[in-house]
């Protein structure tokens, strides 16, 4: 059956795949929400360090929340009618459901693995399953997709799309898809959603009584980092460090970049709350911490370049991380005290 349906969906590049997709889906449905706004409301900011879990031969570090958090929380907090299908057992069903959505004019977000994502930059194609893209058209066997990492919309065959939607491994997508049900006609007040979003993020970063999550996790990682050269030797320490940096800088913005996005969110929020002084100050502080993250990755990159002869002392790097942790903690403490 030859079918051609291409939805008039605008592709915009973004710093973070899921909040970019979420923001673009909101815009398609008539709600002008920027990427930082979607990221902030949907709790994109996160940190966890799980040294006993190894992913691609290095300790697991995550700068982002679980897949789909941003979409789920931002639609929930904004009170928007959306659907998330978590898991579809039969790949054919998953593709048919996608086709049906496209015929009904609904652009649909999908979680995918990037290893076999044909159009993806080759240097990023490792087994990473938490990527998101939006499918917005179909022409015979070819699907039109909007991937916010890429400059332009892309084409992918049905077989390839099916394969990446059923990539296996940690956080396997299992055909997960999500979409917004109706065009958003009534005006939506962002303020309550912003307050909820900030409270939740503050809680996740400093409120959870578990040492590996949020600022506490960051400190734990800083302390471990110092021990790596002695414990594992210079080569492995450098590889582990590289893994942190890759997580911090990969895919457009990565973890360090998320701090910029969050800062931009705080700024937008501050302007929305009639130039709320404390929010704007917090935004500035966040920007400064984000710059420190970037300094940290520059320092670290020098160690990765010459693996057996580290230029930077791991102690210095660890101190830098502790400084970042302290800086971030101040931002969250400040946000916690704000009375809206």
């Amino acid at each position: 059956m030859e079918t051609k349906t291409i939805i008039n969906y605008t592709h915009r590049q973004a710093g973070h795949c899921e909040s970019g997709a979420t923001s673009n889906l909101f815009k398609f449905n008539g709600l002008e929400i920027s990427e930082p706004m979607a990221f902030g409301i949907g709790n994109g900011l996160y940190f966890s360090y799980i040294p006993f879990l190894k992913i691609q031969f290095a300790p697991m570090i995550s700068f982002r929340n679980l897949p789909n958090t941003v979409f789920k929380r931002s639609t929930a907090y904004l009170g928007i009618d959306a659907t998330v299908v978590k898991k579809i057992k039969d790949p054919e069903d998953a593709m048919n459901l996608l086709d049906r959505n496209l015929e009904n004019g609904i652009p649909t977000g999908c979680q995918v693995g990037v290893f076999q994502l044909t159009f993806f930059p080759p240097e990023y194609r490792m087994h990473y399953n938490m990527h998101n893209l939006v499918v917005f058209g179909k022409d015979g066997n070819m699907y039109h997709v909007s991937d916010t990492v890429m400059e332009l919309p892309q084409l992918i065959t049905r077989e390839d799309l099916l394969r990446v939607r059923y990539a296996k491994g940690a956080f396997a997508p299992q055909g997960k898809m999500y979409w917004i049900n109706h065009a958003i006609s009534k005006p939506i007040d962002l303020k309550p959603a912003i307050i909820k979003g900030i409270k939740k993020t503050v809680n996740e970063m400093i409120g959870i009584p578990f040492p590996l999550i949020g600022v506490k996790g960051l400190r734990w990682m800083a302390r471990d980092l110092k021990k790596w050269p002695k414990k594992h030797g210079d080569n492995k320490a450098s590889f582990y460090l590289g893994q942190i940096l890759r997580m911090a800088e990969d895919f457009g913005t990565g973890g360090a970049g998320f701090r910029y996005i969050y800062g931009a969110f705080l700024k937008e929020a501050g302007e929305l709350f009639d130039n709320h002084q404390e929010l704007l100050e917090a935004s500035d502080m966040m920007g400064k911490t984000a710059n420190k993250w970037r300094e940290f990755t520059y320092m670290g990159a020098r160690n990765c370049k010459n693996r057996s002869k580290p230029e930077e002392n791991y102690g210095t790097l660890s101190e830098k991380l502790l400084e970042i942790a302290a800086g971030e903690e101040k931002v969250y403490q400040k946000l916690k005290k704000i009375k809206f």
Partner: protein
Amino acid sequence: MGSTRDEIDDKATGDDELIYTYNRELFYHFDKENGYTQKVDYQNPCNQVIIKQSWDAAEERLEEVKQMVILGKSSPIAYYMEKILMEVPMLAAYMEIPKWRVRRHLKSKVFKKLKPEVLAKYASIFEIPADQLTNQDYLK
């Protein structure tokens, strides 16, 4: 560390050139004068070094496994698994068999007794012709 952003930028761009120029991405920046800005650009040279390190490490691991296969300590499955950057749990998930079975298949003794159907399934995951698993020309 008393270095400013400018100094760091100089160091980053001074002696490095871009390794990856397939796609430009959107980056956020912050400074006091302009606040938050966005820019579409290639990944900066510093980050490209980090990405490259990760690929170099993968290559080194592959070379190690290759030596093990030549010595007869590991099976070609171990080689191809490493080649597509997989680990046992992931390969087991694709094979739809328990992890311990995949682990056994990595031994060259067990590998020699594998049935053609099992080999064919491995080959399809590795995206190679079925006979390439038993034909070890790639090691030369």
